């Protein structure tokens, strides 16, 4: 198989959890040699995050570990000990970048290795009055403004499922790291990439920012009617029930003629509705519901798509994996990865198809699986050294 696009780059990853794990999932999938430094005997917190097969807690089978740590190598190392720090320094000498969620590790790494790209991922970034404050996915999403746009207007704001603030921080961290690595290959020095989870979720508010500043209109949450770039004009853009579940309809007004034909409801394209669709949202919903009440998701979407009306099924995770439409199967998106403890695991594959430098599919490492390879190979430690370090709890 050809090399990945990041072939030849080595990344040392001391992070734990979703954001750092997602960042280095990209770098590993794109072909970099990602060495995850894990606490001896404990490992990455993703190993404890679950869910677990059969709900049996096991450090090797947490599904978030299997997904996010795919294609990385694992070395155990106690960074809290002096000899651990010495080995860390030697490892950094062999590396191009270091990804961490610990500002102290970043500072240490930056001091001893100025050639490195050092990426820190923290709740609020490394500077500013909130730097160092604790924060979770929920808290940083609240601080970033995005949470205020999610949820029912009559209820409390509600968080989009699944640590999205952390995921976006990981994605931006990978982007920033790669940008800094490119600058370095072009002659720039090593540098600090300072990633903030608050900013990562806040990046999703764009559009709302301009309307607030330039049009004096502050968007808030609108339930299943998410406000788009044109909240007074764009509707329907919503989730509605049908016979066997829900569908999503997204029709800005160049689709109104089509949707009125589709549902045989001329009212949907009358001038007063077209001029102010969101103002007629209740009426539009009622008209759509009448049509949807006699159709399954499959029937509704098929009829809509025949007319080029953007309608989609709301799938639950099981339906996504079962892939009734066969689309993901035909594209080979899901991959079956053999794992010595978890068995064969069907999981999401490449986020991006790069024919000349393919995404690397490889299983997640066992805890400390590559300790000997890396420490005895790259750092030329003897087996005797390793035994001593192991006895001292350093590896």
């Amino acid at each position, binding site marked *: 198989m050809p090399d990945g696009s990041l072939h030849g780059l080595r990344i040392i990853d001391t992070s734990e959890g979703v954001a750092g794990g997602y960042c280095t999932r990209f770098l590993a999938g794109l072909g970099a040699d990602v060495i995850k430094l894990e606490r001896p005997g404990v490992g990455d917190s993703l190993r404890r995050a679950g869910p677990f097969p059969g709900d049996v807690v096991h450090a090797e089978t947490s599904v978030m570990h299997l997904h996010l740590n795919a294609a990385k190598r694992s070395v155990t190392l106690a960074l809290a000990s002096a000899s651990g720090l010495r080995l860390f320094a030697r490892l950094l000498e062999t590396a191009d970048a270091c990804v961490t969620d610990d500002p102290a590790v970043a500072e240490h790494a930056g001091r001893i290795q100025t050639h490195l790209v050092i990426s820190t991922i923290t709740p609020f970034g490394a500077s*500013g009055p909130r730097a160092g404050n604790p924060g979770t996915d929920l808290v940083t999403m609240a601080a*970033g403004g995005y949470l205020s746009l999610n949820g029912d207007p009559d209820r409390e704001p509600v968080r989009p499922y699944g640590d999205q603030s952390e995921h976006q921080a990981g994605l931006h961290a990978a982007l920033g790291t790669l940008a*800094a690595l490119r600058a370095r290959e072009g002659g720039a020095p090593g*540098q600090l990439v300072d990633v903030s989870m608050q900013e990562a979720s806040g990046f999703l508010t*764009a559009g709302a920012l301009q309307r607030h500043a330039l049009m004096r209109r502050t968007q808030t949450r609108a339930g299943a009617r998410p406000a*788009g770039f044109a909240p007074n004009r764009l509707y329907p853009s919503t989730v509605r029930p049908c016979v066997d579940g829900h569908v999503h309809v997204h029709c800005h007004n160049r689709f109104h003629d089509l949707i009125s034909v589709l549902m045989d409801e001329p009212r949907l394209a009358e001038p007063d509705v077209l001029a102010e669709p969101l103002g007629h949202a209740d009426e539009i919903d009622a008209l759509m519901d009448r049509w949807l009440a006699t159709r399954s998701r499959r029937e509704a979407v098929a009829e809509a*798509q025949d007319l080029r009306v953007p309608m989609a099924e709301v799938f639950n995770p099981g339906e996504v994996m079962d892939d009734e439409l066969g689309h993901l199967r035909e*594209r080979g998106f899901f991959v079956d990865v053999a794992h010595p403890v978890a068995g064969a695991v069907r999981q999401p594959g490449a986020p991006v198809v790069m024919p000349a*430098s393919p995404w690397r599919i490889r299983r997640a490492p066992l805890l400390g699986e590559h300790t000997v390879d890396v420490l005895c190979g790259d750092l030329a430690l003897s087996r005797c050294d390793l035994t001593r370090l192991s006895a001292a709890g350093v590896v």
Partner: protein
Amino acid sequence: MRPLEGVRVIDLTVAVAGPVATHLLGDLGADVIRVEPPFARPTAHLDVVPVAPGAPDRPYNRAAGHVDLQRSKRGMTLDVAKPLGRDILLRLVAVSDVVVENMSPRVLPSLGLAYADLRGANDDVVLVSMPAFGSTGPLRDRVSFGPGIDAMSGLAHLTGYSDLGPMNASLYYCDYNAGALAALATIAAIRHRDRTGKGQHVELAMLEGELQLVADALLDYTMNGRVGMRRGNAHPSMSPHGIYPCAGVDRWIAIACEDDRQWAALCDAMRRADLRRDPLFGDVVSRVRNRDELDKLITDWTSKAQGNETWKVLQLAGVPASPVQTIGDLFDDEHVTERRWIQYTEHPEAGTVPHTRAAFTLSETPARIERAAPLFGQDNRSILSDLLRLEDRTIEQAYASGVVRDEPPSR
């Protein structure tokens, strides 16, 4: 220097996801040339921001989405469906590194601009395509925008209150995810080209980018046959973990305790040391089980004070918390200001436009948002004559035949 200095990108994108990808590349220093059709920019269904004092009133230059999403780019108009327009585009490809597009997979090939055609002009060019579903598979020709993909990925099913129906993540979640992902893949492909001399056609299907984000729910189904359900702000292994009301109208605070230490600190901050000894809340398992009672106690406390006051107390105590900031709050947030997270461009017709930068700063090669979104056809002349060095005769012909226009045609 800036990270993507020396990289030229041709931007053929539409809607949201594509423009996010290319503005991120522009923010990082690439020379992004946005190529638009020389026809009227539709504004009828868009928000148009007010005209800046003294500027000509041309609404098509001021769509709110345009002035944000097209920053950090130059702009030209070109009718690539005409032979001369196609020819000019290929000459542009010859002096560029990357082409980014997010149209339906049928479109570029139907214009004679398939990847093979682009390679005819520039052998190592990188083409980044961002179709909704990919260029293969039974759904390849489905029409969809980002929010429809939020529905198909499982995200909408899982988002919302436990007693209500599914709900999309707000605004354009899928588009912003795909945009950042495409920018990342672009830089990777440029590195590969620099190392091997080989370009490639990169394909990012927005659906496949989004399925990375709900892997825990997908794998819980594969491994355990369990279909995840909506659970509001409840967390499987943190409690308290919620959004609590504060004094004032529609003001809220987020509070989350990751461990027993933070829980103890919260009890002290609430002046409810007694709760630390309450067996109902003794460890995280109990707190998750008795979540409703716990949330009621916290609500009693938070609803008596302003969110900012409560937040300051919790900040001192080391409890993860933040007021739920409105969009307006972001502009007044000292932390946001000090980190220069919101940056501004001076747009000649829309005035001072705020933008959020990507979620990182770079200490040595900063990414700065400096160039305002282009006016219609703004850089036509400089691109045609200075960059492409077309003969005057060809440029005149392009204008005369409507292949290039400096102003949209009047209706």
